[in-house]
């Protein structure tokens, strides 16, 4: 059961909101206000003042990984392959995950080209490769338990391992990926775009 609170707003603000209402994006003043409060709270939580532990609860973005703007992460395994999965932000949008389909082992993939699809109950989400190379391993556990991605997006929920083409291009490609800080910024920006 959700709690109810009474909120009063200033008259001139109401006029502003009514203007926005006319564009048809929101149906009522209360809907607009509650949305605004929700976003403001999220913003506050994300701001500097929040302790690190609580921020991690909000969105886990491990620092040692590299990210693409399409929400896949890359990690170098001891064998020198690149392990690829989706980020926590992506996982939050994949609650209704039904199927993970990837190109089969041995297939060549290029950087920022789709190498597979995550199918949810209503949508398809393309998976973009962080590097170019050849797929050498596919996480077979995901076939029966696709929800592993939700439970452990950075561990058990990895999707494929890619053997990079050669070390020279790899270095360049890795450099162009986002660090955890940059990715965090990018996610905030996306959320902000939603807000508009």
């Amino acid at each position, binding site marked *: 059961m959700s709690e109810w609170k009474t909120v009063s707003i200033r008259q001139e603000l109401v006029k502003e909101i009514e203007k926005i209402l006319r564009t048809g994006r929101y149906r009522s003043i209360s809907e607009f206000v509650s949305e605004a409060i929700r976003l403001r709270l999220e913003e506050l939580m994300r701001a500097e003042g929040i302790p690190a532990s609580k921020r991690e609860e909000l969105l886990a973005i491990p620092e040692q990984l590299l990210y693409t703007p399409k929400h896949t992460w890359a990690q170098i395994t001891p064998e020198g392959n690149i392990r690829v999965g989706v980020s926590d932000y992506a996982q939050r*949008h994949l*609650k*209704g995950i*039904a199927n993970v389909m990837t190109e089969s082992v041995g297939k060549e993939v290029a950087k920022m080209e789709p190498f597979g699809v995550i199918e949810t*109950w*209503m*949508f398809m*989400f393309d998976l973009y490769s962080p590097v170019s190379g050849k797929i050498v391993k596919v996480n077979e556990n995901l076939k029966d338990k696709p*929800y592993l991605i939700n439970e452990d997006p950075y561990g058990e929920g990895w999707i494929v391992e890619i053997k990079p083409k050669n070390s020279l291009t790899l270095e360049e490609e890795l450099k162009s990926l986002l660090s955890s800080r940059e990715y965090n910024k990018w996610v905030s920006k996306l959320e902000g775009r939603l807000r508009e």
Partner: protein
Amino acid sequence: MLLKGWVYLTEKALQVRKLPPCRAACPAHVNVQAYVALIQRGKFKEAVEVIRKDLPFPAICGRVCFSPCEDACARVNLDQAVAIRALKRLVADIEREQGRVVAQPVPKKYSEKVAIIGAGPAGLTAAYELAKLGYPVTVFERMDEPGGMMRYCIPDFRLEKFVVSNEIAYIKDLGVEIKTSVEFGKDITIESLKNEGYKAIFIAIGTQIGLKLNVPGEDLEGVINAVDFLKAVALGRKITVGERVAVIGGGNTAIDAARTAKKLGAKEVMILYRRSREEMPALPHEVELAEKDGIKFYFLVAPKRIIGENGRVKAVECLRMRLGEPDESGRRRPIPIAFSEHQYDVDMVIPALGQTVETSVLPPELLSKEKRGPPLQVDPLTLETNIPGVFAGGDVATGPASIIEAVAAGKRAAVSIHRYLRGEDLRKDREEEAVEETTWVKDWRLLEKKERRYEPPIEKPHLSFEEARAYLEKLKRQARFEAFRCLGCGPCAECLAGMDLCEGDKAVVDEGKCVGCNVCAVVCPVGAIKKNEKGVAQVNEDACKGCGLCAARCPEQAISMKKLSNEQILDMVLTALAR
């Protein structure tokens, strides 16, 4: 209420359940009006709950049901039926899209074990209903995975496998045990189950054997029955599809087989059917999709023989047909035209003429002595067989039918088994199965035309997360618009779940005004109003759900809806909490 209708008063009308046309047409009587009303109010989750009361497979039926509810929808008289199936699919999908759905296990109230043979829609529904009542239920399945024809005979492009798995996982969550790779007639028999302590058995093995063509050349290489073909594809076996494929038959299985063959790479696929398009049992919607896939239809042709070369199929020789008088099924009987032989060059033939029961696995005492008619003798009302404690239903008793009919059979079996185990009369008050349509709409000219606002996407869109969120909101809005097309023509949505569709008022009769016309008693969906000995309507306050129909219908305006007093509301809350 928008309009006041006129209701005929008959003695019979007082005894049968009065349902809206959609719900009356549904074999499982899913409460369509209630969930559409909930969708109108944006209560998608509650809508799925209402569907699950009558049907364990909202997502499956939202995809492949033949939707008799839409054919019956009162809006057909005006413009077009409400998109009931699409709405059902949408609410079921949205629920799953927001996270895995896990059911709470139901505590075992009774100790009598129930065995169900066959994990198809009939068996699983019976298991679902019995588990909800509190029985320990075990389902035995021959294949490696449960789901029956839903998993093995409906191709992936119509019903995804994960949908079937998820719906079955929900039934398992309730506490149903499913044992796979157990063959009835071999690993288990009725005797062995009874020795193991199962007090009731429900046989729902369906129809597994595809009917034969009975023409020469049927044993050639390249002839494969539609059921076996679809099963092999679903199991992921390697199947080499011919370049030119002929599917024989006009049912849904024929269409499925043809479309599957096309998707597997056949260059040309044709469907040969001995009657004309109007008589095809396949759904018109599916036929259109098949045509879009480029499948050719040849009507009024029947195979005479299959011609082979080196043991492989080379061609089918067919006879042309004309249509004669209607037969017992109401369709016009095809009559062959003499000397009309012609050939189709094909290298694969898929007969899809219907299915029959695998009688070899059934104990002989269950089989019917008569050659004609169904192979199993089953009481159509109670689903009893001639062995006490053994029930049978679904396709095995009726012949190949649809998922929703199997669900209805499963529900019926669950009621019978519950009564049998509790020592109650199996037949008493089963007449409530008799239902009658009621609708208040009489004058269609007064209603406004509205075209359908929501069509389900044929293919899932590829989107980014941000786009998906916006798209989902758009779909929800469209669905609500579509739900508002519902006329609410039935007596009452009967959501009966405190879902605040109504205001919680109760009907109060002004005895001075009542003339005893009985209209209120007829319209009351829950039978809460009766005439007393003085000839005045009397309301049973406990039964009254406050839908307000009687007040809207009363010609003398003798009935009003009164708000409950605070004490009464407190009382209701306390009793609800005590439960």
